[in-house]
């Protein structure tokens, strides 16, 4: 009876909408006051917008009056388990290490238009120190630093500074890569697979420097070993990183060392029953505890604490702040206080690694001692004569940059023992 049915159909559409609306409103009361530790209690009169913070760590970034306010700008999510995770660990440590410090962060900030807007927004809100943690934020940080001379800005991994309120910060990761190389070489030798694989993001000076240090370490414990490089042209792409690891393993690599941000290569190595070495954050080995040898990692907390103390004391000036191992900026998983090396690390190499690490931490074996002549490149040509060392500009490959000297032996060569070549520039 279609006709009848039609007549009996009223149209209370609004009833439905109203009902669902009411349902939602009911569930949408103000949240209960958060008082758990770590959360910042809103301070009256601090900013137009009272800062809101929650126990879970979700919040609207805002400074708190009466505290030293530090904001961090991140390229990735804090849960990336790598580069950004390590910075966020440092941020949390900073709050514990220095009294009356309040921190906030903005994560997953793109490097184009967003960077300057986010950094400027934080400066306008009144943060006293803003730390930007991706290379591509360099220009934006410099620009906002010019607009806010009363605010301090630290850019991680760049090469610009202004001598007053804008400086850069980086550390001698190459030293940890050298030690990781020693471990990888010893493992490769013990397994009778004299080949170590290196997953390299991009052919830039930083990545080449770390790769060369790794190769020198490998050759120190296993002179007959070679280092094979795969350029993956990305910083973070778990699938591509894993593919590169698989190709290195298929190529006969006994140990795979990653220079990118994910733990994919560690998993790939474990699946093959071989060995992996992680990067960036102290807990990378948790991805495959049984088959991970070690992880050279960043340890930002102590450095951030030091920066804040310097700024509070009025002694900080924005410059080129490149810290060596003795500052504590880098670490090697399994070899720090109270730690035991992973089960896969050959016993004979442990005392050697410890000895070099002790000298590095004492400041008697620096990054300049790593690259010491005689050194040949992988084409057989002598790059450094006996006793000759590289300068900081050489290590960073600085060329044509205002305020810096040009490098003489620029970091665009691969050390002897590396099989592979640099993409042409």
């Amino acid at each position, binding site marked *: 009876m279609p006709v009848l049915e039609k007549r009996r159909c009223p149209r209370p559409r609004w009833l439905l909408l109203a009902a669902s609306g009411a349902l939602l409103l009911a569930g949408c009361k103000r949240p209960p006051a958060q008082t758990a530790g770590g959360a910042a209690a809103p301070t009256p009169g601090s900013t137009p917008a009272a800062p809101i913070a929650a126990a879970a760590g*979700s919040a609207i970034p805002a400074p708190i009056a009466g505290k030293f306010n530090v904001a961090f700008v991140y390229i990735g999510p804090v849960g990336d388990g790598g580069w950004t995770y390590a910075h966020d660990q440092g941020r949390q440590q900073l709050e514990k290490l220095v009294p009356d410090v309040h921190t906030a962060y903005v994560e997953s900030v793109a490097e184009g238009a967003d960077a300057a807007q986010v950094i400027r927004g934080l400066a306008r809100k009144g943060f006293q120190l803003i730390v930007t943690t991706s290379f591509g934020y360099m*220009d934006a940080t410099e620009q906002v630093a010019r607009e806010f001379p009363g605010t301090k800005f630290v850019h991680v991994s760049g090469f610009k500074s202004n001598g007053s309120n804008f400086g850069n910060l980086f550390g001698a990761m190459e030293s940890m890569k050298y030690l990781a190389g020693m471990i990888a070489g010893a493992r490769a030798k013990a397994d009778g697979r004299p080949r170590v694989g290196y997953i390299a993001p991009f052919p830039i000076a930083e990545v080449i420097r770390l790769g060369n240090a790794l190769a020198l370490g490998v050759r120190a414990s296993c002179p007959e070993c070679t280092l094979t490089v795969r350029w993956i042209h990305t910083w973070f792409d778990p699938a591509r990183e894993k593919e590169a690891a698989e190709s290195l393993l298929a190529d006969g690599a006994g140990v795979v060392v990653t220079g990118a941000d994910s733990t994919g290569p560690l998993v790939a190595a474990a699946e093959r029953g071989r060995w992996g070495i992680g990067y960036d954050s102290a807990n990378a080995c948790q991805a495959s505890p049984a088959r991970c040898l070690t992880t050279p990692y960043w340890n930002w907390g102590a450095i951030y604490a030091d920066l804040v103390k310097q700024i509070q004391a009025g002694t900080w000036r924005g410059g080129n702040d490149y810290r060596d191992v003795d500052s504590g900026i880098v670490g090697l998983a399994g070899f720090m206080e109270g730690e035991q090396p992973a089960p896969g690390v050959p016993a004979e190499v442990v005392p050697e690694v410890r000895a070099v690490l002790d000298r590095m931490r004492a400041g008697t074996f620096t990054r300049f001692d790593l690259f010491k002549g005689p050194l040949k490149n992988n084409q057989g040509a002598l790059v450094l004569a006996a006793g000759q060392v590289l300068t900081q500009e050489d290590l960073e490959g600085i060329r044509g940059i205002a305020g810096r000297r040009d490098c003489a032996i620029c970091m665009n060569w691969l050390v002897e023992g590396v099989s592979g070549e640099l993409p042409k520039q």
Partner: protein
Amino acid sequence: MRWPLRIVPRHALGRWPRAGIALAAIALALLLGALFLWAAGIDPVAAYAAIGRAAFWGGAYALSDTAVKATPLILCGLGCALAFRMRLWNVGAEGQLLLGAWAASGVASFWLPAATPRPLMLAAMALAALLAGGSYAALAGWLKARLNVSEILSTLMLVYVATHFNNFWIFGPWSQSGFPLTPQFPPAAQLWRLSDAAAQVPALGGIGLHAGFALALLTAAICWWSLRQTRLGLAIDAVGDNAATARSVGIDVGRTTVLVLALSGACAGLAGMVEVSGVVLRLQERFSPGYGFTAIIVAWLARLHPALVVVVALLFGGLLVGCREVQPAGIAMLLQGTLLFVVVGSEFFVRYRLRWCGWRAHE
């Protein structure tokens, strides 16, 4: 028993009922979003206030940030809308944007002397970007017209090609000192910005609004006019309605396909030029957070109308700017996703209505 609600198609709705449905959808999305915020331990009222302040009513900074963010969305959105009206699914505006940025950067830093007068330099950059983005999309158009290759696949795949092409130049021949960026553009290659006048008018300090925004509005006006007043505009809508009919009245569908994709790509290419010369001031890795992809949504929400593209891009730009206030970013993305889902989903109520038929046993 049977389900008492029926889904019934409805006649074409007028402008105001449609707007009403869209507004109701936004309200519903905000309510849902409030629920998520509350669950994450953030006061929804304060969060929405912070978002609104950062994006719209927080003064000149807020409006400038929103307009800067909206500029590439407007240009790419116009490009998408042009093609979509003809049922050409150009989903590769991102790639066309990247190539436009590449060509503009080449002109700015390498192919023209730094001493070139500013208007000439900027015009040359814009022209190079239009040509690069346009010919890149025309390639997909030619494949479609000649070999019937799906433009969805070809334009999307060409995004990856463009990304790697740009990276090759950024890391290789154009690299500054081996770092993943080109040298900064000479002053002549930088678009006029409000903050340039900060020396005379201190209030303009840090206001990053650049001439590219005006260019985007001008482009929207041109698109709007051309769609209504030109033979090509008519052809686009005719082919979009029914290609066979359009062909039968003498429209060369193949030629129109290539031409429209070229224009679509040119808009996106111009977005790339505007972004490098108004904001980034050099070509660097990852300078676009995917404007070309976001623009697809912008074009759809604007119902492929050039004037609405501007409105939607500004609202969407504001949403992106404002949502940075909520951390961690995942919550903000959830908020954006909810809004999009509900607003796009509300399109259903434009075409259908629910009819209450009562709980009755089926006979």
